[in-house]
Structures are given as structure tokens and as C-alpha cells.
């Protein structure tokens, strides 16, 4: 049995089986738990109530990202007293249990799924959990990483393990060269549009194929990040030279002889050539285009060249009603060309698209132009380190000159737990991951796009096919 070909997922899973009792879920060891202020307070309280403690504080790190204001002056004097109390509670819990906290004001603070990779805390072959569904991001390194609820956060704090039933495996191969102007975000939006928001429920997806191999680590993180939007338990990508080059020399990466040993171990992780997956799907990358979501579920996406689809074309009745409801909420009419939809706001940020390459790509579009007069646009770097790097490169100056707001790091308007929210009826081009009703603010209307597409929409005031940017940006329509 041990000679059978295995998938990347199976190799990582097998290396973490503590015990597999008859008739019970398998107990899996967790190498790293990431913590933030929103989903942890009740878990720490649970420990106190039961007289338990944190088994391995050295396998936990914490940061403050969801509630933190993105305006500098507000970060150290948070007006929202409930949010301030939640943040203070995380500080107290980390102190009490000896957990390293990357606090507001530190050079390491940022969105938990941005800072883990950038410090080299996230590594191939690890099991990683966090009380946050976008933990799937870390799968880009060949880690098994998934979101959990607060009861499970408490379970991991107490035992460093989780009982888990073994998920199925789903290989999605994206083959061929990605056309110019089409990004990792478009790949994952296309996949979700194709398989649906429950298309990978119960599965761990392995993203493979030449188009995935060709992506940078940041592009890979964007794809794994949105695995959850296809219903997947996790997304994974096999570690390779790109992965190792990214990790080498990072603060918490192995060094010297240990680095060589680590690379040798990580090199064993990719799926064996004949490994069997429960499901497989092949996507032709050469046919992909920039996508825009038009509805209230991430599966409701269409090519920028298309129009808002017609619910009457949906055969299933419950889907059709969801479709009609979505159009009503979004205030859109079937048949409207997507590139004619006017927007009010632009949000460039979130654990999906707030890394330095995202900001470079958006800045390249914005450079020399100005945000449309009827649009308000903001850029929220994913971490303090991303912000610092962007400022070294002068990206902040490009954004500011173009009329974008340049903010401090955090989750911000991806979910609007901090002061950054849409007002009812506002329409936003957003680089985030969810277009649910009210996600960015009650009554707000979210359209998911890539950073390039968001920047282009900010300039023209409506969705714009970024593949034609060279020509469009010459016209008088653009300021």
C-alpha cells in the first residue's frame, strides 16, 4: 500500500495522522494555527472555563486584521468600542497564553493570510488552520490549510489536533498560456463560474497544469484563496522552484543545512505521476478572459465582453429564483453589457488581491490617469510590509496622483467590519472574494474583479476590458 502513487494532499495528510480510531474521524496534527481578533475570543474563554491551556503556543501566531481602521489616526484610538474591546481581548489572551502577536503598529501587522507567507511562517507540507475560511490561501505552498469554526479553534489550542474525516481529491488542471490582461483572479473566477459555489464541497482541490506552474506565488495564493468560494475544504498547489525561491531567506524559513534538508523534504510532496484523484477537470487557459461578477454569489460571473445573463435561460427553478433575486438586489437588467455598468466605488485589497504584485499591476493601469469624477477609490495594502515595499517603489505616489485613497493595512472593505463600508445602493468594483448581499455594507453591490480590472474601472467609471487598455487609455473618455 505504501508504494501506491499518492496525491500531494494524501502525502501531507498521511504525515499528520496522530491516530485513526475505528469508526471515528482521523485525528490530524496541526503544525500552525493562525489567530485573529474576531473568531478567537470565545475559544480562549472556553479554555479558561474548562481549566485547559494552550498546548503549543510556539505553533500559534496572531494578528489584528478584521476590525482595524485603515486610517492611521483611527488605528490607535478605535471609536467603535465593541471592536476596541475585541482587539483588547486578543491582546490579553495572547499575553496570558504566551502567543506571539503581530499588533497594530508593528512592522509585521497585516491580513493573517498575507503575513504568514511573507514571513516564511507558511511552508510546504504543513497543516495550517485559522478561524477564517480564506485559510485556503496557504495551500499555494503545498500546505494543507483550511478554515475552521471557533469550537475547532479552541480544540486546536487545547490539543494541537483536529478530528477530521478525509476529504475527496479534485484535480483541476489549467493548461496553456494565459492571455495578456488575464490574471490568476480570472482563472479562479472562471473555475467557480463553471463548477458553482458548491462544485467542490467535500473536496480538497489540487490546482495543476502549465498555467498554474507559470504563476508567481502571489498568483497561486489568489487562486487557492478562493477555493472556498467553490465550496472546497482546501486548495493546494505542488511546491516547486517558484515556491522555494519565494521562501528562501525569509525571516522564519530554514537556513543553511536545514534549508537544504527542507527543500529535499518538500521536493517529495508533489503528486506522483499516476496518483488517482476522485474527480478531475481540465480548463483551457488560452480561452480565458477578464471576468466580472454580476450577482450575489461568486459563481455568478461572466466575461467582460458579455452581458448580464437572463434568468429565463436557467433551467432549474430554485436557481432561477436566486438569479432573479440577485438581479433585483444588484439593480441590474438582463442583457445590459457588463462594460456599460457604472460604478461608484473601487476597493483594491483583501487577502485575495492585496499583495505587492497586485498593487504593481493596479498602479501600472492607473499611472498617468485620474479616477473618474463620480468614483471614489481606495487601495488597502495587505500588510505593513506590502505597504512599505509599495512606498519604496513609489506606487503610493502613483495611486495618490491618480486620486486613489492610500490606506493602512487590514481586511477593510472586503467585509466591512471596520469603518470602510459601502452605503446602501453603492456599486463597487472590488478585488475581494465575496459578492454576497450586504458583504461590503448593507445594501452595497459588489462586483468581483482582478486588480487590473478594478483600476481600469476606477479610471473610466465603468467596467472596462483591460486587455484593450493601451487603446482605451488614449481616448478622451479617460481623464
Amino acid at each position, binding site marked *: 500500500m505504501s508504494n501506491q502513487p499518492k496525491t500531494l494532499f494524501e502525502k501531507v495528510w498521511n504525515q499528520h495522522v496522530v491516530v485513526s480510531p475505528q469508526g471515528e*474521524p482521523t485525528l490530524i*496534527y496541526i503544525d500552525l494555527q493562525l489567530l485573529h481578533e474576531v473568531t478567537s475570543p470565545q475559544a480562549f474563554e472556553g479554555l479558561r472555563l474548562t481549566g485547559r491551556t494552550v498546548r503549543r503556543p510556539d505553533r500559534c501566531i496572531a494578528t489584528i486584521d478584521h476590525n482595524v481602521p485603515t486610517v492611521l489616526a483611527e488605528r490607535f484610538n478605535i471609536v467603535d468600542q465593541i471592536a476596541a474591546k475585541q482587539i483588547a481581548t486578543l491582546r490579553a489572551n495572547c499575553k496570558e497564553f504566551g502567543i506571539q502577536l503581530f499588533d497594530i503598529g508593528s512592522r509585521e501587522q497585516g491580513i493573517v493570510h498575507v503575513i504568514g507567507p511573507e514571513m516564511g511562517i507558511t511552508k510546504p507540507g504543513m497543516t495550517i488552520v485559522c478561524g477564517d475560511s480564506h485559510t485556503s490561501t496557504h495551500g499555494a505552498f503545498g500546505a494543507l490549510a483550511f*478554515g475552521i469554526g471557533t469550537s475547532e479553534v479552541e480544540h486546536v489550542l487545547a*490539543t494541537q*489536533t483536529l478530528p477530521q474525516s478525509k476529504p475527496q481529491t479534485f484535480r483541476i488542471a489549467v493548461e496553456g498560456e494565459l492571455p495578456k490582461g488575464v490574471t490568476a483572479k480570472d482563472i479562479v473566477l472562471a473555475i467557480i463560474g463553471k463548477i458553482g*459555489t458548491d462544485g467542490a*464541497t467535500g473536496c480538497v482541490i489540487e490546482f495543476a497544469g502549465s498555467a498554474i506552474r507559470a504563476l508567481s506565488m502571489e498568483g497561486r495564493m489568489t487562486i487557492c484563496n478562493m477555493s472556498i468560494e467553490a465550496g472546497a475544504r482546501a486548495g493546494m498547489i505542488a511546491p516547486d522552484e517558484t515556491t522555494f525561491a519565494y521562501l528562501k531567506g525569509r525571516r522564519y524559513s530554514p537556513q543553511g543545512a536545514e534549508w537544504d*534538508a527542507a527543500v529535499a523534504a518538500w521536493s517529495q510532496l508533489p503528486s506522483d505521476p499516476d496518483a488517482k484523484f476522485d474527480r478531475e477537470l481540465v480548463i483551457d487557459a488560452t480561452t480565458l478572459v477578464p471576468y466580472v461578477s454580476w450577482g450575489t454569489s461568486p459563481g455568478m460571473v461572466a466575461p467582460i465582453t458579455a452581458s448580464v445573463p437572463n434568468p429565463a435561460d436557467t433551467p432549474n427553478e430554485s436557481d432561477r429564483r436566486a438569479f432573479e433575486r440577485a438581479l433585483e438586489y444588484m439593480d441590474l437588467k438582463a442583457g445590459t453589457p457588463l462594460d456599460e455598468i457604472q460604478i461608484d466605488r473601487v476597493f483594491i485589497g483583501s487577502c485575495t488581491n492585496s499583495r505587492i504584485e497586485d498593487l504593481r499591476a493596479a498602479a501600472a493601469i492607473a499611472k498617468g490617469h485620474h479616477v473618474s469624477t463620480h468614483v471614489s477609490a481606495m487601495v488597502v495594502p495587505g500588510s505593513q510590509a506590502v505597504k512599505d515595499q509599495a512606498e519604496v517603489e513609489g506606487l503610493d505616489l502613483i495611486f495618490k496622483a491618480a486620486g486613489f485613497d492610500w490606506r493602512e493595512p487590514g481586511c477593510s472593505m472586503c467585509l466591512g467590519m471596520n469603518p470602510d463600508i459601502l452605503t446602501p445602493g453603492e456599486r463597487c468594483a472590488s478585488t475581494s472574494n465575496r459578492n454576497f448581499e450586504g458583504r461590503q455594507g448593507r445594501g452595497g453591490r459588489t462586483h468581483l474583479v482582478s486588480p487590473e480590472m478594478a483600476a481600469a474601472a476606477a479610471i473610466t467609471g465603468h467596467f472596462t476590458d483591460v486587455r484593450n487598455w493601451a487603446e482605451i487609455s488614449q481616448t478622451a473618455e479617460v481623464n
Partner: protein
Amino acid sequence: MEPFKTITALAAPLDRVNVDTDQIIPKQFLKRIERSGYGEFLFFDWRRIQEGPNAGSPDPSFVLNEPRYAGAKILIAGKNFGCGSSREHAAWALSDFGFRAVIAPTFADIFFSNAGKNGIVLIKLSEEDVALLLDRAAQTPNYELTVSLENQTVTDTQGFHATFEIDPFRKFCLTEGLDDIGLTLRHAAALDTFEKQHDQANWLKPKFSEASV
């Protein structure tokens, strides 16, 4: 957690697909540090009129605001219930509101796990069965369902009878109301042995440079 054996209770129909956890409990209520008291915020935006002079007051057209569904303990909904965010607050809100069981064609994975940890039984039935139950709950006054976890059945007094699948261990935990951490700690010796060995793998340490000095 409260053990679940068999309940007979009023059933409320929520005829929507892809009900995400942002709808079940919106973000503004995730700032609290307590584990209880979320019931009043369940489906907060859907339960309230969004626009006009009456904005903010209860929307009489939303199913859970209809007096005839007051006290419902069973919720019937469309496919992919609980998708999106991992917030356990969604399960806390459903439980605090009084729901003990949700019936739908499919559930999202993280929500499925969270519900079980809070004593909520999630029952997967076929799309046809769910459509029938949604219809009956909407048409029949005081429509009650009996959910037997022991027998893994859902029945009504009009002759509806369906069986559902549930993982035997999950069933055991729900019927006994067991604490997961306590169950895991039965394996403490195996965990100690595994961990000692596993700690040798420096390449799986979160903070290598600090762990190695």
C-alpha cells in the same frame, strides 16, 4: 451541548439556495466576545425592511417574522446552506434562536462542522423531498415535522417519511451531547508520542529560526 434524540416541532420554510453565513449573521455582530445572545441578530438584514420610511422595522414578508412560524425548531432551506465565511456565530445564532435541526439538499463543509459542535442536526434530503417539505411548511398551518436522530428519519402526519444518512460518530456525539476536546484527550498518549517524533521535522515548524536556536 444539549443531547439530540427525537424532536417534533414546527418547521419554517426558507425557500432560498446558497444561504451564506453573511446572511445568517451579518458582520457587525461578529465583534462581540460572547458566545451567546446572537439569536436576535439571526438573518438580521432579511428580517428588516431595508428602504423607505419604515426602514429598520421588521419586514412582515420575511418567513421568520410571520407569527405562524414563531417557535419553529426546524428550518427547511435550499441547497448549499451555510456557504461562505467560517463564522461559528452562524451556528450560535440559529441555535440561540431556537433551531435544533436544518433540512436542506446540501450544506457547506465548515458550517456543517460548526453546526454539529452546537448540537444542531443537519439533515440532507433529496431536492424533491426538500421541495415537498418547503411547500407543505408554506401551505399547512402549524406544520410539524418529527426528526428522529436515533432512527435517522424525518416524518410528518401527512405520510411523509424519509431516511437520512449521518456519520455514525457524529450521530453518537450529537445524541450524547459530547465535548470534542474531551474525546480527543482519550488519545493523549498517542498524541504525546506522535508529537515528539513530529517535532523532529524542522521543515514543518512555523518559526524555524526561533525554534532551532
